[in-house]
């Protein structure tokens, strides 16, 4: 699929034009090309960082909302609804009390909201407010501004260093964590044209930087002069030995498949060879997901900050904006993990079902887009009174979605998986992750690496993959997943001395007296 958004070239032409017409007309004209290059690189770096920082709000929003949906709890939507619907479904006409009729627009808005999501709509509000399964209306994007409020709170808080802390290390540790986290994004391309830096061995460079932050965590934990932070820091270092090696071996398998250590080439190889890596290395995808959850220290692998036993783990003594930035860097690392998963295994910035899977239909973009858009239009048409004639409209939209948007959407989808994992699992122990890492993750990652070698050397003949291979691998992976996923035989388990489920015994009649 041709990338029509050649942003880097556009910026290059623009800066060259500017440089030619300013410096180029002075005695410093020799430097005009250099100036143009510097300007181009700066603009691209700002673009990448701006995109990442701007879209990280989506991550926080997904964390809030998706988590709240899974937990089935009332969120900010319910609080917002109280503006137009009071307790027990009563109307609150507070806007009528405003002077000079300034409440008129609010009254109009209230009427609209009541018609669409209030008492006057098809369901009764009283039932909705009592029923916690109802979460309000998604299009209000409630909770999005909460992050801004949190940030302002952090900024106004005092920065305190514990009296007996190792002050220098204590101050340096947040900088190590935050800077190394931001530096990761220098090597994550948002499309083949939008990236901040693209060295030849960007994969190795980036994975090295990814591993710096746990060192900062260890510094922070050791220097705080607190027993909880000390334990948290040591747990972080111990955890590092469990997941880092399987992670690197898994990443190596992706590099082997693509035959390159360059991230952009890895992504583009999936487009040119026609198959996303997740269909070739499903085991690698699972391993990468597991180790990345450990790398970004989320549940079930968040022992360094286990709040139940270690209060807040290694960052107990931190506060203020340094804590806020470290928390933000935590999410940035999650974002980087999601983006990397999308690039390594989900075809990067390629449109789903664009070129990769179906390589035989001519103009497949158009045909598949038309089918998708038709279904979308049908759905819209069934749902409301919009004429189905509007159906082709999304086709146009879909074909002009920039590749970066596809990448970000895939990353957000992955983050939803992260949130899902967090919502459904518990925290495991340090010794358990060490055992898991050495006894399961490492051998499996070696198997995965061997599989990648076999695929690259024996199966791939240049050009596109033979379609049979990914179909076969995916089918085997799905069958294994189902077999491993279904429950154990309960009758067999009952016979064991320590079954998974211990059944409660019902001892005798309700009471001895009832016998009499």
């Amino acid at each position: 699929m041709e990338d029509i958004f050649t942003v880097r070239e556009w910026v290059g032409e623009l800066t060259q034009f500017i440089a030619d017409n300013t410096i180029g007309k002075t005695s410093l004209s020799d430097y005009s090309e250099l100036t143009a290059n510097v300007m181009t690189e700066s603009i691209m770096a700002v673009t990448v960082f701006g995109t990442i920082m701007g879209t990280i709000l989506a991550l926080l929003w997904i964390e809030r909302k998706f988590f709240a949906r899974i937990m089935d709890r009332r969120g900010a939507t319910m609080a917002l609804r109280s503006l137009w619907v009071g307790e027990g479904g009563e109307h609150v006409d507070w806007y009528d009390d405003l002077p000079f009729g300034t409440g008129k627009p609010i009254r109009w808005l209230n009427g609209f909201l009541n018609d669409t999501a209030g008492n006057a709509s098809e369901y009764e509000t009283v039932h909705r407010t009592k029923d916690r399964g109802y979460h309000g209306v998604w299009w209000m994007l409630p909770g999005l501004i909460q992050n801004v409020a949190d940030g302002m709170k952090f900024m106004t808080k005092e920065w305190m260093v514990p009296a007996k802390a190792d002050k220098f290390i204590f101050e340096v540790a947040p900088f190590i964590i935050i800077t190394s986290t931001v530096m990761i994004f220098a090597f994550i391309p948002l499309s083949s044209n939008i990236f901040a830096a693209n060295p030849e061995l960007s994969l190795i460079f980036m994975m090295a930087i990814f591993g710096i932050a746990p060192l900062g965590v260890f510094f922070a934990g050791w220097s705080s002069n607190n027993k909880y932070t000390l334990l948290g820091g040591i747990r972080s270092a111990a955890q590092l030995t469990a997941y880092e090696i399987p992670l690197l071996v898994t990443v190596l398998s992706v590099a082997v498949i693509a035959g390159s250590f360059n991230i952009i080439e890895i992504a583009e190889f999936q487009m040119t060879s026609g198959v996303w890596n997740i269909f070739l290395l499903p085991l690698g995808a699972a391993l990468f997901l597991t180790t990345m959850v450990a790398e970004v220290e989320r549940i079930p692998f968040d022992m360094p900050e286990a709040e139940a036993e270690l209060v807040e783990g290694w960052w107990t003594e931190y506060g203020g904006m340094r804590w806020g930035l470290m928390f933000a860097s935590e999410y940035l690392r999650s974002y980087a993990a999601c983006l990397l998963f999308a690039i390594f295994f989900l075809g990067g910035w390629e449109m789903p079902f664009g070129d990769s899977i179906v390589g035989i239909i001519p103009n497949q973009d158009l045909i598949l887009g038309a089918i998708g858009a038709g279904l979308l239009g049908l759905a819209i048409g069934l749902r409301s009174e919009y004429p189905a004639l509007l159906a082709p409209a999304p086709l146009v939209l879909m074909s002009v979605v920039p590749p970066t948007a596809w990448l970000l959407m895939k990353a957000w989808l992955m983050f939803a998986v992260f949130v899902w994992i967090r919502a459904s699992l518990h925290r495991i122990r340090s010794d358990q992750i060490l055992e898991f890492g050495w006894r399961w993750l490492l051998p499996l990652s070696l198997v995965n690496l061997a599989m990648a070698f076999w695929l690259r050397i024996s199966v791939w003949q240049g050009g596109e993959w033979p379609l049979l291979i990914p179909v076969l691998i995916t089918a085997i992976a799905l069958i294994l997943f189902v077999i491993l996923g279904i429950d154990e035989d309960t009758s067999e388990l009952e016979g064991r001395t320590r079954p998974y489920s211990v059944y409660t015994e019902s001892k005798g009649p309700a009471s001895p007296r009832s016998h009499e």
Partner: protein
Amino acid sequence: MAEMWISMGPQHPMTHGLWTLKVKVDGETVVDTIPDLGYIHRGVEKICESRDFTKITTYCDRLCYASANTWAHSYIYAAEDLLGVEVPERAEYIRVIAVELQRIASHLIWLGAFCPDIGNLTAFVWCLREREMMMDLLQELGGSRMHYNFPRIGGVKRDLPIGFAMRARAKLNLFLNRIQETEQMLDESTVFLVRTQGVGYAKPEEMVNWGVTGPNVRAGGVNYDVRWAHPYSVYDELDWNVSVERPSIKGADSYDRYRVRVDEMRESAKMCLDALDKMPGGAETHYTEGDPMILGKSKQRAEEGQTGFHHFEDSRGESMFYLAGGGEQRGKHPYRISIRSPMFLTIPYAAKCMIGYKIADIPAIMGSFDPCIGETDR
């Protein structure tokens, strides 16, 4: 790493209240523990000596924030024993319903607090969602959501509200359905199993020696439930089973304690449904025979040297009130009151159970014993 003492508490996420657990650790391994209680000792026993018999109920409500109703009933039965009051059968049925609803609510808030201890917040919110239904029902009975002050000496505050049985049946059936969902999420999660199975072994004989009662000792295979062993109220007329776990040779672990409580919630719900069916009609919910003025005649009823007590199955174990009457001298007030708190005996044993396990197991073990510091410190 050298051995060091960590003082967990009084403000610590593990404590579920206000107490300190001093832990000696060698790296991540717990070597020694010292529980330090008494932070919120309010002297309830002493305060009650200066209150008349009816006013003590409000204080007993405040003994445990998670299970107020059971403590109020625990006192009421002891006071009725002292004053020699007989209760109409319908009032006993209403009391059983109130107590069992409170037991479900208490176990739900335990499960809700236990899961964040080992890292899952979803189960917490699910459990509070279900607890809300029990709260609504109890609110209909007592008019309040936390400290109900529902039982009276000789009966209950008021009869069941109109339509209560219908709403209670609907909500309890819904609860029985929904608890399966939470159970599936926990029981089928390997991470939950590896965190709870095999940690915090408590031997049944040791638990009996230390005086541990309730779900904790039933998790160790000891079939001792006051409602079954020494039936009071109408428990022997209802259809229910005692939840007893089949422990391993090493004793009861955290998972056994989790299982026994979940099963007990289910039995309590079934007991409530059964009580709603078997409840006699009429409006007699208060002591009417003989002297209606219980308090006015308490001088004659609670003579000097006369005592009243009652074993009661609280949500956390066997609670007991021991009342001594003062006759003419003390008037309407008891001469002395003593409270047996199940958690006061359980917490030292739970702290002993942690030795040899990891720091990460401390919440998984302590949380599974369901500590409530309000009643512990009294």
